[in-house]
């Protein structure tokens, strides 16, 4: 693993009596695509919220590029981008206006905002629809705008929380290509998904969470090898073996 870019140490977070995250520790190397997997309620979203400074851990420390999320949240926010699972954008605005708005909030000036907005829309093959209202877009286009917003300000670490939910294979493929391209350009990515084949294809390493804890962490191939022939075993087999088959609704 390359030098540690993100270090999470012994994270704990409770809501009332419920322990959502219970002693989570891991590191993400620079330029790595790291998968965070787990069934519903495993604690993935709470963990990402703590990593992205939205929630403070009850116990534990997170540093990103050497900056503490607790002591230096402004510094941390200046180098991260978050693409949430929800389409957290303004549907009544155009794609360009959405990117411009978030661009200004990450501290870009007008000229930089304009340039980056157009570049990110082009990256997502949406430049022709820059002035179209997001409410008129297809699900796949909205997902791509959601990701384009997260790229404003050229973050060094990108949090992608299930970015491919409910979209067609073409849009999904476009998002994969974009993520791989971003990594080639030096970006570090934390990726959560329920699609195991996505994690297998994209991630250098994955951590599987259950019940607020990390139950396994390694490369997809190494995890599969622990269960049997890595060429015949799937990551989903590993996932079900580690987290069980009971429903988690």
């Amino acid at each position: 693993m390359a030098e540690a870019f993100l270090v999470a140490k012994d994270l704990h977070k409770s809501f009332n009596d419920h322990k959502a995250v219970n002693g989570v520790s891991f590191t993400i190397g620079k330029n790595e695509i790291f998968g965070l997997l787990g069934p519903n309620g495993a604690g993935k979203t709470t963990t990402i919220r703590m990593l992205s400074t939205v929630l403070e851990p009850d116990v534990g420390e997170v540093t990103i590029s050497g900056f503490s999320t607790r002591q230096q949240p402004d510094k941390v926010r200046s180098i991260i981008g978050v693409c949430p699972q929800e389409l957290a954008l303004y549907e009544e605005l155009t794609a360009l206006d959405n990117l411009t708005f978030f661009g200004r909030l990450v501290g870009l000036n007008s000229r930089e905002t304009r340039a980056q907005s157009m570049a990110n829309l082009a990256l997502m093959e949406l430049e022709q629809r820059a002035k179209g209202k997001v409410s008129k877009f297809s699900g796949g286009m909205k997902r791509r705008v959601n990701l384009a917003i997260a790229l404003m300000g050229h973050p060094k670490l990108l949090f992608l929380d299930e970015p491919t939910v409910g979209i067609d294979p073409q849009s999904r493929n476009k998002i994969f290509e974009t993520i791989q391209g971003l990594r080639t350009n030096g970006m570090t990515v934390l990726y959560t998904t329920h699609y195991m084949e996505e994690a297998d294809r994209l991630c250098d390493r994955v951590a599987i969470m259950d019940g607020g804890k990390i139950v396994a962490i390694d490369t997809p191939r190494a995890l599969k090898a622990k269960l049997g022939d890595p060429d015949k075993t799937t990551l989903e087999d590993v996932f079900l073996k580690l987290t069980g088959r009971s429903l988690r609704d």
Partner: protein
Amino acid sequence: MKRALIIALREVKTYLQDKGDLAFSLLLPVATFALIYGAFGGQGLFHGTAYIVNEDTNGVYAKQLIENIEAEDSLDVELLFLADAERKLERSDINMVFLIPADFTDKLRTGQPAELTFMQRGNGGQDGQIVASIIRGIVSELNQEFQVRGQVEQALVGKDVSPQKITVTTWQFLERERKYPLIGVKEVVVGNKPNTVNEFLPGIMTMYVLFAISIGAAAIVEERRLGILERLLTTRLTAGELFFGKFLASVSRGFVQTFILLALSYAVFQIFTPLSFLTCLLISFIFAMAGSAIGLIIASVARTQDAATWIGVFVTMSMTMLGGTFFAIQKGTILYTLSKISVNGYANDALKKIISEGGTIADVWLELVVMAGVFVVGLVLSRLLFKAIPQGK
């Protein structure tokens, strides 16, 4: 501060660009005002219907009496058959009917006293009593006319004057008397003459501004549900800036809406001087701040957009009703005591003092202080309650 302004500017820009939202927020107050203006005839004066049963169908004096009633500006006349009138009275469709008996003209011709009847349900209702009073006045005038003519005829008995000449001369004399009465009555209005515009405009405006702010609160709840507020907190925006940005956005939206409505009123009704217009803008701005603080409390306590909408409707309607928007609240009643909690009431009073009474900012300082107090307390409370994400910042 700069990032809070970015939040506010985006929302105001969206409001001004969204033709549907803009049209609704401006047209609905105008439509409501037009309805009220229509309902009150634009004058605020009484207007009623005189229900008349005329059994003296061919009688000239009955006809003359009905024509005199029809000539009265404040009354419309609806002629009924006796059976219909009795049925309507029975069903409470109407409360008062004026009956002209079959022998009305004959009795007057022969110099006998004729008797008219008011048939009424209960006390005839407030409107019925006013209509009856107006008709009594018309009857009294007609009575005088007959008496004068009768006395003139008696005085001229044995003289060579034709009855037609007596009638025409008497009529001319009475007509001159009506035009140039010996005892006149003049109206002296203290302050600006109360009218529909002055009475209802402030209340309707503040009601819709509070509605808009409540709807804004529901939108904040929806942004929380969609994860937009959480996403905003992963930019450089702090929770405090987010809160302040939302507050500024709400104030700006409310104030822009008020500004446009006041400017329209200025142009259409010409009820302002430049100074009174500016004073009303200041009152509206402080009201928008107080309303926005209340809106943020709603956004903080509501868990769903529907809940926020219903709380907003309840708060707005309570404030509107207690603010004396549609009816005056009498001093000394429980409602009057309750009305003291209505921030709309203070805004309405202040705006009326400026618009109707020609007041200045010195006359509305108390209202401004109360609204500013609501703003400060509301803002502190909403900041304590406001969360961008449940159980988070």
